[in-house]
């Protein structure tokens, strides 16, 4: 990873639909050199996935998101890894982090409605052998996610200005 790779990533993280030529133009590299670097970033897993970031508030189907704090008993041989692997295989789990502080795992779960998320917690998560306790927080409104502000602030006034 050098300065060019960093710049390439910066552009793609903001908008992955720029093609290699356009990214190359921005960072000052030829198209094929840029493509090679992007390929390498993909192969090495630096670029994990290209995706679309949705404003869930605007989807026609409702989605409920919850953050779940989980305390677990780490296992002798594998620490937190084994339990984490068991948890992340559920497709409801969108994100899973090992945390410092008052609890061990932080899980982001998505479901169609409150009941679905609750069922995941009561039937799948809390019944796991090493889970000591869970604490579920439902997300009420997303103002900003992945660096994108979703909040539609209509207070900005039209300005007439010469410059």
């Amino acid at each position, binding site marked *: 990873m050098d300065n060019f790779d960093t710049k390439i990533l910066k552009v793609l993280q*903001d*908008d992955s639909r720029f093609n290699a030529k356009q990214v190359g133009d*921005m960072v000052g590299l030829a198209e094929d050199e840029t493509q090679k670097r992007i390929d390498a970033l993909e192969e090495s897993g630096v670029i994990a996935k290209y995706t679309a970031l949705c404003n869930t508030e605007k989807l026609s189907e409702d989605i409920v998101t919850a953050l779940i704090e989980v305390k677990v008993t780490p296992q002798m041989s594998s620490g937190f890894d084994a339990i984490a692997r068991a948890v992340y295989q559920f497709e409801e789990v969108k994100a899973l982090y090992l945390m410092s502080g008052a609890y061990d795992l932080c899980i982001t779960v998505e479901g169609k409605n409150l009941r679905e998320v609750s069922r995941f917690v009561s039937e799948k998560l809390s019944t796991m052998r090493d889970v000591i306790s869970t604490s579920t927080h439902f997300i009420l409104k997303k103002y900003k996610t992945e660096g994108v502000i979703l909040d539609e602030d209509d207070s900005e006034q039209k300005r007439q200005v010469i*410059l």
Partner: protein
Amino acid sequence: MNYQKYLSKTAMDIPPSGIRKFFDLADKDKEVISLGVGEPDFNTPWCASEAAIKSIQKGVTQYTSNSGLPALRMQISRYLKQRFGVEYDADSEIFITVGASEAIYLALRAILNDGDEVIIPDPSYVSYSPSVAMCGGKAVAARCFVDDEFRLTAENLQKVITPKTKALILPYPNNPTGAIMPKESLEEIAKVVKQHDLLVISDEIYCEMTYGGRRHTCFSEIDGMKERTVLINGFSKAFAMTGWRVGYACAPNEIFKQMLKIHQYIIMCAPTNSQYAALAALKGGFEDGFAEIKAMVDEYDMRRRFLVKRLNEMGLTCFEPKGAFYVFPCVKSTGMDGEGFANTLLKESKVAVVPGDAFGESGKDFVRISYAYSLSSLKKAMDKIEEFVAKHKKN
């Protein structure tokens, strides 16, 4: 009531700005992607905003000295020396204004007598010529050409000098063209300035926005020019502080005194809390080696490269600007002039750019595109412009 007989003839004679005229049109439509506004899309450094808030909380809401906070003048003096190698005395040569705009007007007020001529590179920012007129002077255009990458050449400057010429306005890096004046070019201009005994008002508000590794050269750095130069700068562009309205003027003491006198009578002082914000912005800059400016300039640079490539590829010839945050492509290949292009583009593709003739006659076949917008919006706009150009291209 017939107001005509009450109104000032000087005021009425000033034409409305071509930019303003255009945006009254563009403003009516919500879907329009605007590439029109020349204002950083970054936030003011938080340390600056915080300092202003703190100053309000502490109740520091009185006037400052007419010339501005001493600490701010000192930091500006330090900044100019460290970043650009020019030395100005914080007490006798620098004072704080309400944006660079006020400073430009004061400089003209301080030096012009009725009928004095002021040379302005054409194209240039829209406020110079009306300001000259308001001060009783006559604005004279010195044409700049794309073949010279819109630099002002000594030759084109010579052509418009008359016995009445008193001063030259030197606005580089340039709005709207993005042109810069490298040191060698400034030296050529300096020879003419000296030969004809002129003053120079050097508007260097975009001094931090240069690309391709070349730092900006202040005109007053050129041998013998400091005594003839009013250096104008401010915080709007480099620190993304447009709405705070803080600028400054640096001038030889005799000119400084006259400018400050007018400033005292018409303004009193620049907004106090804004001055505290500016002070914190500079201090913060010294602490981290002006890292925020660098990050901002790197981001502008990517956008600049992207636009120049795209525009040239779609057939709008565009020289590579090395400063400010504008590109200035020629739209002749579409069979339209800048105004026709901008109007039709707005109507058909809902993208707003500014017709080049708003900045002077030499901009007639060009449009100004600001890249103070996110890469994603620039990409969307470029896709639309590309489609538009393909449709209208004259082969």
